[in-house]
Structures are given as structure tokens and as C-alpha cells.
């Protein structure tokens, strides 16, 4: 009975993230449009885009190898698994044993690896340019991420999301500073990882400034659709990651009533909307920075995370 419930929860979780991902992107775009005094497309536009892409014919270069065609599927799959592992509206005991922060980072890294290879596959300068920049950003983002995980694991004594969330829910006073630092750091990382302004501009197609778009320049049709979806999923993942780690309140405990689940779902939606609005606001506020400023930007995140860890040593008397 319990087994089946956890299973259902897991599947539900998987379906949910996949379903909500485009919506989040849509909300962000809509809000940005609003802030720019435009009406903007509906928040469901991303669904339509992806659907159209799926219907379109796919064009593949002569120089493309199987890497190029296989990459989108793998990228989406890896991102999906990672996103599924992050509790969104309820504790998912079925996934808890593998819902390890390092694993999630690893899965995203794997997706990035595949994407960069795909970028190089055609042999155009754009692909290479995008890939090398993407990997550069990763080299700064991953240590910062690990430091944040380090801090969290020092607080919770574990790297399992579920238990981190539980610990934060019952926060010990004195940890707030570190938590705050870690939070800011993670938020900045989310910006870097998702290629949002000021790091990268998902809306641009000006060759010299683009990073992510440069890698997928050759993609079209269903492949592009898969990658777009993966992008959206990744954004959702980070949002729900921040949510579950720093504002875990309202997370429905496992094996609770349907009502509680509903409640948790509602709370989660609210979190998503708020996050989307904030992200949109910051993107409007800032401008894209030069590529070689980005490492410094992410470096700040690293510093914050490191600071968080060291403060923990101070605040805690081991």
C-alpha cells in the first residue's frame, strides 16, 4: 500500500515538473513583457512553441553525427530525472534515497556535457564558441554549487534534499546568516546555470553575445523542441530547489491526506509564481554583461558560499 503510494507520488512528481516547466517560462516572459509595457504572449505560449516545433520538419547538417541527434533526448531525460528528484509540493520518500544534491548537480553536468558535444558536432564556429563558454561558466558554477551543498550538509548533516528540507523547517537559530548567504549564492548560480540575464540572454540571437543559443544554433524541429523543454525544466528545477531548501514550509509530508497534498501543491504554485516575478524583475533591471565578467559574477557566488561554510564553523562549536 505504502509502496504504491510512494510510487504514485514519484510518477506524479515526474509528470508534474514536466507539465509545469513551460508554464514557468511563460510566466517569466509574460511578466517581463508587462514590465516592458508590452502585452506579451500568453503564459501558455511556450507550450504552443514546443508543440509547433514538434510538428515541424527537422533539418540536420550533413556533418552531424549520431551525437547531434541523440543529444536532445538525453539532455531532456537527464534534466527530467534531476528535476524529478527535487521535491516540489510534497516529500517523495520513493525518490528520497537517490535525491542527493551532488547527484542532481552531476545529472545537470551530464546534460551540459552532452549539449556541449552537440555544439561541437557540426564543426561550426558558433557551436564551439557556445560550448567553450558554457564549459567555462560551469567551471565557476560547480565549485560554488558544491560549496553551497557543503554548507547545507554541515547544517543538516546530510546531502539528501528531503532531510535538508526537514532540518531547515525546524531551523536552529544562528544558522540564518549562513542560510541567507547560501540562498543568495544559489540564486546567483541559478541565473548562471540557466543562462539568464545578466549572464546570457535567452532571447538574443546576436552571434557574439550568445552562449546557450550558440550551441543549439543548428537545431531545429523536434530536437529544438526537446532542448527548449529541457531549458524550461532546468529553470523549474532550480526554482523548486531554492524553494525546497530555503522555504520548505508548506511541503506536504509523505503519507498525508489528499487535502494536504492539494495544499502543498497550491503553496508550490505560489512559490513558482513569486520566483518567476522576481526573476523577471531582475532581468529587466539588469543588462547582459561581458562573457569574461561572468566568472567574476559566479566567483561572487563561490565566495558567498565559502563564507557561508566558514561562518558555520564559527556559529557552530564542533
Amino acid at each position, binding site marked *: 500500500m505504502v509502496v504504491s503510494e510512494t510510487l504514485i507520488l514519484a510518477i506524479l512528481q515526474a509528470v508534474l515538473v514536466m507539465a509545469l516547466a513551460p508554464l514557468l517560462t511563460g510566466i517569466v516572459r509574460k511578466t517581463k513583457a508587462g514590465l516592458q509595457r508590452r502585452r506579451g504572449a500568453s503564459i501558455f505560449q511556450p507550450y504552443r512553441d514546443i508543440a509547433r516545433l*514538434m510538428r*515541424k*520538419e*527537422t*533539418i*540536420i*547538417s*550533413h*556533418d552531424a*553525427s*549520431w551525437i547531434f541527434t541523440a543529444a536532445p*533526448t*538525453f539532455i531532456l*531525460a537527464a534534466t*527530467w*530525472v534531476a528535476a*524529478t528528484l527535487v521535491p516540489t509540493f510534497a516529500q517523495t520518500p520513493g525518490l528520497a*534515497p*537517490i535525491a*542527493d544534491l*551532488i*547527484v542532481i548537480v*552531476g*545529472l545537470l*553536468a551530464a546534460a551540459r*556535457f552532452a549539449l*556541449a*558535444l552537440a555544439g*561541437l558536432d557540426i*564543426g*561550426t*564556429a558558433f*557551436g*564551439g564558441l557556445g*560550448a*567553450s*563558454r558554457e*564549459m*567555462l561558466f*560551469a*567551471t*565557476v558554477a*560547480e*565549485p560554488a*554549487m*558544491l*560549496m553551497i*551543498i*557543503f554548507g547545507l550538509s*554541515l547544517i543538516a548533516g546530510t*546531502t*539528501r534534499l528531503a532531510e535538508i528540507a526537514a532540518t531547515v523547517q525546524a531551523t536552529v537559530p544562528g544558522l540564518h546568516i549562513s542560510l541567507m548567504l547560501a540562498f543568495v549564492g544559489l540564486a546567483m548560480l541559478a541565473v548562471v546555470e540557466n543562462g539568464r540575464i545578466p549572464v546570457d540572454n535567452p532571447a538574443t540571437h546576436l*552571434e557574439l553575445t550568445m552562449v546557450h543559443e550558440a550551441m543549439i544554433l543548428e537545431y531545429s*524541429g*523536434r530536437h529544438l523542441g*526537446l532542448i527548449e523543454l529541457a531549458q524550461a525544466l532546468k529553470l523549474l528545477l532550480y526554482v523548486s530547489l531554492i524553494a525546497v531548501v530555503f522555504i520548505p514550509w508548506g511541503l506536504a509530508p509523505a503519507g498525508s491526506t489528499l487535502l494536504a497534498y492539494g495544499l502543498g501543491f497550491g503553496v508550490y504554485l505560489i512559490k513558482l509564481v513569486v520566483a518567476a516575478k522576481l526573476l523577471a524583475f531582475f532581468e529587466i533591471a539588469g543588462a547582459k554583461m561581458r562573457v569574461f565578467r561572468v566568472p567574476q559574477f559566479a566567483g561572487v557566488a563561490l565566495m558567498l558560499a*565559502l563564507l557561508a*561554510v566558514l561562518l558555520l*564553523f564559527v556559529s557552530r562549536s*564542533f
Partner: protein
Amino acid sequence: MLILAALLGPAVLFGLALLAATVSRRRWANAAVYGACALVAVAGLAVAVTALLNGSTETLTLPLGIPWIGMHFRLDALAAVFLVVVNLGGAVASLFAIGYGRHETSPERVVPFVPAFIAAMNLVVVSDDAFTFLFAWECMSVLSWALVVSHDRDPQNLRAGLIYVAMAGFGTFALMICFAVMAAGGDFTFAAMRAHGAGLPGLVLALALLGAGSKAGIFPLHAWLPLAHPAAPGHVSALMSGVMTKVAVYGFIRITFDLMGPVDWTLSLAVIAIGAVTALLGVLYALMQHDLKRLLAYHTVENIGIIFVALGMALAFRAAHLPAAAALAATAALFHVFNHSLFKSLLFFGAGAIQNATGTRDIDRLGGLIRTMPQTALAFLIGATAISALPPLNGFASEWMVFQAAFLSGSLPQWGLRLLIPTAAAILALSAALAAACFVKAFGVTFLGRARSAAATAARETDRVSRLAMAALAGGCIVAGVVPGFFTNLLGPASQMLTTARMPIANAVSPLVPVAANHNTYSGLIIALGLIGATLLVAALVHLLANRATRRSDTWDCGHPEINLLAQYSAGSFAQPIRRVYASIAFGARETVEMPAPCDLAPAKFTATLHDSAWELLYAPVGKTIGFLADRLNPFQYLTIRAYLGIVFVALVLLLTGLAIWS
């Protein structure tokens, strides 16, 4: 008597080497010798695994070597673990060589040495007294030197061999002094050293770092490694990088964990710091390379750094009496040793196959090989994914354990460690990310895109046997990544021996548990299944729902087609952002662009310069000093007889005066 079996292997291999020396020029010699070598190695592997499983410790003393000591041999858990590594690597390398060796221009310079080399590495691992250890150790060095200079027509190889053998001698003497310091009253048996521990732990550890570390390639002693390893034939490079460096690590572990007895935490500080620096600089060096094998060699340096960080943490935890954590760190180190031997051999095989197929190691001359050498490409891709520490492969599993161990540093009493280990962990994460970048570069530029040279266009897939060897290793990487629990269980006895504790038992399916206290778990199996399932699901959905129409067309070229295929993104251009960000600090990298004047049709020149500080500050001065002194002393060959008489006279007078004054 497993120990007898473990000694029989090397004996047979030495005999095989002698035999090979006589027949090596025959056509059939290659396959026969390597085949036999592989069989013996497999037998040795079986012996080692049984020794691990029944976890017994056997010793044996032969009346050889130094008469009043004899040659002592010991097969314990630690030795067994490394026997597994050595013999597995040896077996696969021999298998690969059956195919690869056929392209060897002068087999008589390679074939006889390989079995002896493997045998020597076996002996190092099972030896149980200082003399035997150093004897086998130095044999290992000499034999590998012979393999490094096997392509002696290239003066670069000879130079590499010279530097290598000099560094090997340096390491051996360092270890010799190290053992002499530990041996009380000329008793060189490890048993005696175990009994009374090290008198001067600091000195002993420093010497162990110099001796074993120089062989393993820790910064700043590493500079010989990227010269020597690539110089050898492909399967030998794999043996040197994948296995011999592990034997060096074995030497370090044997001394610091087993012989020295309890070690103070301050020493672990040094080990961790050195490891972290080695890891970071190793991968940064690697990123700057465009010679495939040299790139791989530098990655060996990086992984050695990771291993040393783990070992340092194990020392720290052991000193702080946190057995569980120590067990985790030690197991992580050993597991990474094993994993690295797998994927590094695999990658070197790939490089060797490419060199055979295209005749070059310069990846800027390659490209598009994924079409001509699809299976090699797949194997190399798996290796690259593994070494980049990406799930669900084995590299990720062991690095996950290393990080888990680092996260436990909070419970260490010493401030120094509590501040150092997080930094080291961050550096490891950084180097992992850099490694990923580096292998995107390596794989992308080598296998993807379009062929940059005629050789690359004409490349053909390598022979079946070589591919079999690569497939075996790729399979190993996957298995070790998917069911790491199985391997960590095998490592249990060793960690028991090193840290008096072992990781919680994890049966093959159930997830890996670093320490019982926190509930972290990693299940490679579930992740792998999840990934596969999700991939299949997505693929299926796309197949069902999406439009399957696909059109092949030219790449979009912004309207001006590239004539020159060399204008593709190259290794240098890929690494350029990273070089700007990191290398400018690490190696004082400078870029200069010479733009021709307007209306001048001359091409613009871009040059990037790097400074290898380790070489410039450590290696070059030694050479300069010796040269200088040699020049200064040389005139003593040309003096007149009277001058020589004068020297005799002065010597006499000096000695007599000294006698008159001091005695």
C-alpha cells in the same frame, strides 16, 4: 598458498620476457607473447580477487636478496587490491597489444619488456621488505624506461627517457633514505618497521612524498610524467599512466598508513594541500595541451591529486579517531585508484588506436573520427564521461565518495583541517568541471566536426582485438559506476586494515552508504535505470507524437562557406576562455595578436605563451647547475703534470696541517 601463486605469476612473466627477447622478431611473437601475458595476468587477477574475498594475510620469505634479511613477500588486503589493479590493467593492456602491437615498427624493443614490466609491478605490490620493494620498484622504472625509449629514433623520446630515469632514480633514493630512517638497526623488513613505527614521522612522510610522489606525479615533481608517458607505445602508456602511478600510490599508502603507525594531523594537512594543488594544476595543464596523449598524461596528474586529497583526509580522520570517516576516505581513494586505472587505460587505448589510424596525436589535425572509427569513438566517449565524473559512471561514484568524506570534515577538531578541506573540496569540484571541459574539448575536436587533415579523413576503425579490449574497459567503467557497492565491499578488508574500519556493507543493488551516521545514499543502478528509462520514454514519445520528417542539408555558414577545414574550432580556441580566466594566473599565460596593417594581405598572427613554473623553477635549474659545474670542472682534465703534482702536494700539506692542528 595464494602468495606462492602471486609470486608464480611474476616468475612466469619474467621467463616469458626472456623467451620474447629471443623470438620477438617473429611474425607470430606479438600475438603469442601478449596472449600468454594476458593469460598470466588474468590468473594473477583471479589470485588477487580470491585473496580479497577470503581476506587472509600470507607471508613468505625467500633466501634471496640481502643474505641476512632475505626477500620477504606479503599478500594482505592492501596488496591484493593493488594486485587487482596491476593485473587487470596488465591483462587488458596485453589484450589491446595483441592487435595494437601488430603496427609496431620494431617489436623487439617493446615485446620483451612489457611482461617483465608487469611482473615487476606485481613484485612491488607483494614485497614486504625495503630491499625487495626498492629492487622491484627500480626494476619497474628501468623496464618502463626501456619502453619509453623504444621509439629511439625520435630524440624527444630519448630526452623524455633521460628525464624519466633521472627522476626515477631520485625517487628511489628518496625512498631508500626513507626506509633507512624507518629501519632500526639495519632491519629492513616491513614487519620490523611496523613494530616500532617511524621515529621522525615528518621526515619520513616528506621522503615518501618525494619518492612515491615523484613516481605518481604530484606537483611540482610531475614534470617528467607528461613527457615520458606519451613517448611509449599506446598500451605501455596505458600501463604507465593507469597502473604504474597506482603502484606509486601503493608505495605511499604502504608507508604512511601501514608502516609509519599513527600519523599526526599536521602531516595530513600537507598531503591534502599538495593533492589539491596537484589536481587543479594537472587539469589546467591538460586543458592547454593539444597532443592527445600528453593531455591524458596531465589528467593522470589531476587524478593522482584527487587520490592524494582523499588519502590525506583519511589520515586526518584516522588521526582524529573518526574511523568511519577515515574508512570512507580511504575507500574512496582506493576506489578512485581502481576507477582511474580503468578509464585512463581505456582513454590511452583510444589514443593509441587513433595514432595508429591517423599517425598523429595532435588533435588539431584530427576531427570527424566518429564517422570513420565509430566504435573507438563510443569507447572513448564512455571513458571521457567517466573521467569527467559524470553519473552514472564510475568516476562520479568515487568522486561522490570523496565529496561525502569532505563533508564530514566538520567533525574534525583541528581548525586548520576544517578550513583546508572545504577549500580542497571546492578545488576538486573546480578540477572536475575543468576536466569535463577538457574532455569536451578532447572528444569534440578529435571525433566530432569535420576532418582537419587527409590522415583523419583516411582513418579506418582499429582491429577487432583492440576494440575488444576497449569494450571490456568501457564495460568495466559502466559496471563500476552502476554497482559501486559491489566494489566498495571488496575494498572493505583493505580499508579495515588501513583505518580499522570499513564502509557499511552495500550489496550490489542497494545504494552506497558512505557512513551510517548520515543517511546519504547513492544508487548508481537507480540513476542509470532512471536515465535509461527517461531517455527511452522521451524517445518513444517523440517518435510517436512528433513529426518524423528529417532533411539532411548543409550547415548554416552565415553565407560564406569555410574553405579551410582548419578554420574549425580548434583545441586552442576552445580552451581560450579558460586560458584567459585561469591560466593567466597559474602559468602566466599571455596572448599576443599581430594584426597586419590595413590593406596588408599578410595573415594576422595569434600567439599564446605559457610558463610551466614547475619546469622553470625546479627542473631547468638542476640541469643548468650541473652543466655549469661540469664546465667549470672540465679544465681539470687539461692541467699540466706540474699542476697535478701541485694538487697532490697541496692535498698532502692540507691533510698534514689538519693532522697537526686537530688530532
